[in-house]
């Protein structure tokens, strides 16, 4: 392998022999940790995908390590009232371009999904890969209001916030952001405080941690005495992190381990955090399934209000009773049930005809189970 490939290629991280060897270490450490089994929450939706794609869930179950998905999919945890507000914007207002990441357009609500909505005259939906594309659209369509439906965690929010600030700086007045900005540590606290789901440790998200840094989870180890490890996105990364968690359990010394040091620096990304802090401020926010959580969201600071679609269009958000009947995404996101336990799973609700966001998003737990045929 050449030098570049050694740094970048996924090869060794997916190698079958390496995975098998790591699993044997997991089994050994699991035994050393004592007790009959152990239950670890993977917080990040992309981890969920890796876990199902490579069959890790079953392999780990066989050695006594249960994995349960947490609230790590931004599309999923964004409650329906925000999705509905986005739909209303593009169906009720003329000459409005609503830009969004692809997944966000397929979430079903009581008033349909964005993708299936009939846009008002001169209005349309644009699927983008980066918020920068939506700003470009605003530059090119000065006669239209461009609203970026921005949902994300600490990984994505700096990009969106910076784009909104850039619009203001450049005097682009037809641009705003409908924000669904979430921060990861508060829901972990909420889940631990509720005590409803047994969790012996956490697999912390790789790229959220690249921004916020390992110390953001110190409270989990210190106050709640739960071990945890930051993991990358390859199967070997996940197993290395699980080994660390089991070692922490065995030693009775919970901490925040970093098993993704090639990307996550000990201090995270202070430049990105400074961007967040300059443009946004913490706010209490409602999560699907988890309800209102103190300081779990981010809102534009007053100086950036002109780029805030909620203010610009006088949107009323924050109601909690807009979920579709029968969908148990909320319980999935809290780790209370696994998707196959939902009555609609695989019958009424499929990837082709999703009934809830957890079956829509590429980071959704229901989709991961269904796509890779994981048994419960």
């Amino acid at each position, binding site marked *: 392998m050449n030098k*570049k490939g*050694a*740094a*970048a290629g*996924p090869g*060794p*991280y997916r*190698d079958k*022999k*390496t995975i*098998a*060897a*790591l699993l*044997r*270490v997991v089994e050994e450490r699991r035994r050393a940790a004592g007790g009959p089994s152990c239950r670890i929450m993977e917080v*990040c*939706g*992309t981890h969920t995908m890796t876990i199902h794609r490579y069959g890790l869930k079953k392999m780990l179950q066989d050695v006594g390590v249960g994995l349960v998905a947490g609230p790590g999919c931004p599309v999923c945890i964004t409650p329906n009232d925000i999705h509905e507000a986005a739909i209303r914007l593009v169906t009720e207002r003329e000459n409005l371009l609503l830009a969004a*990441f692809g997944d966000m357009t397929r979430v079903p609500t009581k008033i349909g999904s964005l993708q299936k909505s009939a846009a008002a005259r001169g209005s349309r939906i644009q699927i983008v*890969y*980066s*918020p*920068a*594309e939506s700003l470009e659209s605003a530059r090119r369509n000065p006669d239209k209001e461009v609203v970026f439906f921005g949902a*994300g965690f600490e*990984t*994505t929010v*700096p*990009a*969106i916030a*910076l784009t909104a600030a850039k619009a203001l700086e450049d005097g682009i007045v037809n641009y705003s952001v409908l924000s669904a900005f979430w921060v990861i540590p508060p829901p972990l606290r909420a889940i631990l405080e509720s005590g409803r789901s047994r969790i012996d440790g956490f697999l912390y*998200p*790789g*790229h959220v941690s*690249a*921004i916020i840094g390992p110390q953001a989870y110190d409270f989990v180890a210190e106050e709640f005495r739960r071990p945890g490890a930051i993991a*990358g*996105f*390859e199967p*070997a*990364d996940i197993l*290395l992190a699980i080994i660390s968690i089991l070692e922490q359990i065995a030693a009775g010394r919970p901490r925040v381990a970093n098993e993704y*040091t*090639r*990307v*996550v*620096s000990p201090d995270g*990304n202070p*430049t*990105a955090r400074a*961007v967040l802090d300059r443009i946004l401020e913490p706010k209490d926010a409602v999560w699907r399934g988890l309800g209102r959580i103190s300081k779990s969201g981010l809102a534009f600071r007053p100086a950036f209000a002109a780029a805030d679609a909620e203010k610009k269009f006088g949107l009323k958000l924050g109601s909690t009773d807009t979920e579709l009947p029968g969908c148990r995404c909320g319980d999935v996101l809290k780790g209370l049930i696994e998707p196959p336990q939902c009555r609609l799973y695989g019958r009424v609700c499929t990837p082709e005809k999703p009934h809830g966001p957890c079956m829509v998003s*590429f*980071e959704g737990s229901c989709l991961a189970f269904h796509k890779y045929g994981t048994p419960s």
Partner: protein
Amino acid sequence: MCLGIPSKIVSVDEIHQTGQADHLGTRVMVNLALLDEARVGEWVIIHAGFAISKLNDQEAKETLDLLRQIAAHE
């Protein structure tokens, strides 16, 4: 969606804090404003069009060495 595979910076426009990167053989635009500084040849993680972190070569090598050791030892 988080892509864990790093991209290599191939050009940098310092004034606009943007550049181009090679992601698995494809040229992509990348915004570099979330990094302190970025140089051609460095590997970065790109998320929603923005580079959010640099790949630490030394750490990457150590993790790979560890994996090889575990695979060889078993």
